[in-house]
């Protein structure tokens, strides 16, 4: 016994001292990394860094060997950090970053005197080193209970969000206030901002079209109401009836996740366009003249309602399922009839959910780019106008920035409203206790009403997807239904040539690029998202709510706004990324990070805090706790986050259409291009291939995860927790 307690004393004593030594070693390790960043990594340039290092191209030389004197002071902070004193470490981090940003902004690529190209890998590594040194210093000063890992993650995530979400948005503001030659022009801004093209109300008194801002708002309102109503009808049918086709409703609700957004528009054209199937039918048998009615508000509305109803459905079925049956049973025992129960208990309880569903559909509609692009005709909305302001003949970046600003104000307002609403009015009856009981059956009239809406819509959805999946395998959809593999071969043929097998189809290149970039972005997205969720859910620090707002804000920023803002922000040094694959990966990461945050937050909320606390009182610090306790339990959430960020990255179009280049073209952009020139066959085949691949990924992974959850012990035995990250 005595020997044992000596052992223990040695153990705990060495634990504390060991931790301090570890931290001293840590700061030295980061200094070494900083030296590596300055003396080995190429300071400028991001593309093919290793090749340029080996070739010693002047641009790619490390900072210390550039012969550019203003880079030499970057070494000073590293010397300061060697002392290991908290104050010096903090100062080193701050000074290093400040000097780097300062020289980067002041000394541009052009000019009479000093010039330099855009920063590269060395600069990125040096910035990371500075952040780490500052974190160690702050932690030693007692920040976040002295936890280096927490301070470091916080600073890193915050820095990345500021650079890749905050800075681009600020650049939009700046561009909006600039004249095209770069001067500060508030008058011009006012003129552009209040122009009739944006805010005109001519359409009300029978004049020309209304301003694009009103168009967008009206469209989003209409879609929000319709999608919410339909979503509610679907949710009532799926949750509160025993009809046999309920699984089908669930299945269809998953489809939009894996469907590239513009494909529905495409299918609608083939159905209702001037030579569409339905148009042909009506024209031949009823003599109804062919019109272009589908191009405009009507078409966009149908397409968006098709696309966003499932989202509203998912929100509302969750809300309906959360209404405790015992409340309805209580109402029934108090002599309330079916209608009365629905009106006085169920309806008030789901009303906050309805508002939430409306706002989400509203935001999605505001941000939607692809359907208006396909179906807009002369009906302009902000998202497409931004695009045409940049790529069109006009090429007016200032106007694009102003439009982006208006759109941003709309979506952020709706986003804030949604957060305020869901934050304060959740009646979710989560008591932690098992709530048995049966939900009250729907009133008959309501049930009939729901069915009369749901069934036709279900048929339309099925027809639309049938066209998407099958339309590319006939000669000309609507006229000639002879089966053909022509389009599939055009896009995805594999030929045998002189050098062996090669991918000759026109779609391969963009397909492979998409898969590669999405695959690189996926783990980064999930890691950043879950780390942010962990910080938000498990740590407390000053300015947490601001941090959360910044992190979730990128969810509300429309893709087109991200696209234009990235072009404005990262087209010139100090950070020049346009035309690279890196910028596409970054846009994937920061657009989809909220998916990871939400998945992480939801799962962390299920994990009792006492588990972390138990681990802490058992001598494990936060990083160890995260690695050994939280991550293994979060495993399903990690996989979900990865799957969804991958799928979203593959199917997105709005942001990346601004960012693709000749070298890095993406599937969705390629398909939009094909559809634009009328090659519907290839566009449909390619879309069908994407949908099938995404469905395979989704189904494959979820069956894998499902099996792992059942065989939990085997899984943990086989895979040590350290392999998780």
């Amino acid at each position, binding site marked *: 016994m005595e020997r044992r307690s000596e052992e223990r004393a040695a*153990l*705990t004593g060495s634990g504390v001292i060991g931790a301090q030594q570890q931290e001293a070693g840590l700061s030295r390790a980061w200094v070494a990394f900083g030296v590596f960043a300055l003396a080995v990594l190429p300071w400028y340039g991001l593309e093919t860094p290793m090749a340029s290092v080996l070739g010693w191209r002047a641009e790619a030389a490390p900072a210390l060997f550039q012969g550019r004197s203003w880079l030499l002071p970057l070494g000073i902070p590293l010397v300061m950090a060697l002392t290991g004193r908290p104050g010096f470490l903090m100062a080193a981090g701050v000074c290093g970053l400040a000097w780097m940003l300062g020289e980067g902004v002041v000394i541009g690529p052009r000019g009479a005197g000093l010039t330099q190209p855009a920063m590269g890998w060395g600069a990125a590594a040096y910035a990371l080193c500075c952040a780490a040194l500052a974190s160690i210093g702050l932690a030693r000063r007692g920040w976040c*209970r002295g936890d280096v890992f927490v301070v470091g993650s916080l600073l890193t995530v915050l820095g990345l969000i500021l650079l890749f979400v905050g800075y681009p948005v600020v650049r939009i503001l700046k561009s909006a206030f600039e004249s095209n030659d770069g001067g500060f022009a508030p008058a011009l801004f006012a003129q552009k901002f209040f122009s009739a093209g944006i805010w005109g109300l001519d359409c009300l008194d029978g004049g020309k079209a209304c301003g694009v801002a009103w168009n967008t708002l009206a469209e989003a309102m209409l879609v929000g109401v319709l999608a919410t109503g339909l979503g509610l009808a679907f949710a009532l049918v799926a949750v509160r009836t025993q009809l046999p086709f309920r699984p089908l409703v669930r299945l269809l609700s998953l489809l939009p996740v894996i469907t590239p957004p513009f494909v529905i528009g495409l299918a609608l054209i083939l159905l209702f366009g001037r030579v569409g199937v339905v148009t042909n039918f009506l024209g031949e048998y009823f003599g109804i003249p062919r019109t272009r009615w589908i191009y405009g508000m009507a078409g966009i509305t149908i397409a968006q309602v098709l696309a966003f109803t499932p989202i509203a459905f998912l929100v509302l079925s969750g809300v309906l399922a959360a209404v405790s049956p015992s409340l309805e049973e209580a109402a029934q025992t108090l002599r309330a009839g079916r209608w009365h129960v629905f009106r006085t208990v169920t309806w008030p309880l789901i009303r906050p959910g309805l508002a939430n569903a409306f706002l989400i559909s509203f935001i999605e509609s505001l941000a939607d780019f692809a359907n208006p692009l396909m179906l807009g005709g002369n009906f302009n909305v902000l998202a497409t106008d931004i695009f045409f302001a940049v790529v069109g003949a006009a090429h007016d970046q200032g106007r694009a920035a102003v439009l982006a600003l208006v759109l941003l104000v709309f979506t952020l307002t709706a986003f804030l409203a949604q957060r305020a609403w869901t934050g304060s009015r959740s009646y979710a009856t989560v008591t932690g206790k098992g709530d048995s009981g049966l939900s009250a059956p729907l009133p008959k009239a309501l049930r009939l009403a729901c069915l009369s809406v749901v069934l036709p819509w279900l048929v339309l959805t099925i027809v639309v997807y049938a066209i998407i999946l099958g339309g590319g395998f006939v000669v000309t959809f609507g006229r000639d239904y002879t089966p053909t593999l022509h389009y599939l071969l055009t896009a995805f043929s594999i030929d045998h040539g002189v050098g062996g097998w090669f991918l000759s189809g026109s779609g391969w290149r963009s397909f492979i690029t998409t898969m590669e970039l999405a695959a690189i972005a996926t783990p980064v997205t999930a890691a950043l998202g879950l780390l942010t969720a962990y910080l938000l859910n498990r740590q407390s620090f000053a300015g947490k709510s601001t941090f959360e707002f910044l992190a979730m804000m990128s969810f509300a920023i429309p893709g087109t706004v991200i696209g234009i803002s990235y072009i404005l922000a990262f087209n010139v040094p100090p950070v020049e990324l346009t035309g690279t694959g890196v910028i596409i990966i970054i846009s994937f990461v920061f657009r989809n990070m909220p998916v990871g945050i939400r998945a992480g937050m939801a799962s962390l909320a299920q994990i009792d805090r*006492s588990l972390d*606390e138990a681990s802490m*009182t058992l*001598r494990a*610090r936060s990083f160890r706790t995260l690695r050994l*306790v939280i991550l293994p*339990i979060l495993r399903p959430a990690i996989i979900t986050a990865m799957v969804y960020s991958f799928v979203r990255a593959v199917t997105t179009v709005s942001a990346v259409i601004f960012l693709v280049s000749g070298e890095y073209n993406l599937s969705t952009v390629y398909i939009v291009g094909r559809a634009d020139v009328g090659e519907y066959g290839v566009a449909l085949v390619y879309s069908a291939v994407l949908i099938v691949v995404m469905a395979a990924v989704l189904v494959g992974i979820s069956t894998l995860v499902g099996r792992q959850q059942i065989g939990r012990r085997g899984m943990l035995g086989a895979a040590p927790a350290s392999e998780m990250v």
Partner: protein
Amino acid sequence: MGETAVTFNRVVKRYGAFTAVDDISFTIEKGTLVTLLGPSGCGKTTTLRLVAGLEHATAGRIEIGGRDVTALSAAERDVSMVFQSYALFPHMSVLENAAYGLRASGMKRGQAEAMAREKLALLGLAGFESRLPSELSGGQQQRVAVARAIVLEPKVLLFDEPLSNLDAKLRRHVREEIRSLQQELGLTVIYVTHDQQEALAVSDRIIVMQSGRIAQDGAPRDLYERPANRFIADFIGDANLLPVTLRRTAGAMAEVTLGGLTLVVPHLGAVDGPAELAVRPQAVRIGAAEGVEATVVKAAYLGSHMEYDVTIHGLDAPIFVMDTDVAHPRAPGSRAILAFELTGVAVVPPA
């Protein structure tokens, strides 16, 4: 007086404008079991978490084993804790759970598991090492949590309402186990509960807390027999509190008037004038030859004894009385004469 294991020196914990722990000082001797007792929201759990390092004091100084730990994190303090929910890691086996602290301290797996096995065996869990927590009963899960905590042989072991998730029958058994384990191994334990009986049964010393402050600190017998104020008298032992007028005091005794009756009872520091008489339910004899007149309002049969609510004529509030005579229950509405035993009746100062 043994060595001091834990010292709180004027510790304050605030959350914004709310003060959860308000200027608390106490010391805990090595090898004793001290209970923090109080109603919910009194700050007892916060105090415990301040010891653990899961919360950090706004002001004041905390020492564990003579070392100032005020600024240290939970991982750096030599304490371990048994959580209300047990907080067993659901993805680890019983053995992995028990060895977790040693592994986190940097011990080799083999040695850590050997020490963990030893403690699991001590708690009667030999043979359960490879199970998952979800495959154990509530009582077994709790023993795993205790084993996991004592493997580290911490300077202080903390229990946060450890019995609240167990059913009534198991509670008494587990509470005795905890007590005997503590005495066998000479552990220093801080134990949080809101159940006064549990506190009386296991503690060497009880610190009663009320709205963030210490209301009384003493041995179980002190608290029960000499409550410092009406709050303690009410909270420990469910005393009836009757308004009385204190006429005069003589030594330990005081003369009070209750209704028309004059009584000579022990006093606990009350001064002349209006005061309160604390009367234990079992210190009232119902059906005495002489005393105060009362009417039975409610009667309940509890097998081992009867419980009555009776109103004394001239007083508003009914008082609660326990009577071991189950053979002759009294009907509601019947009259009875009450007399007070001298033990279990005392004049207390207001809170």
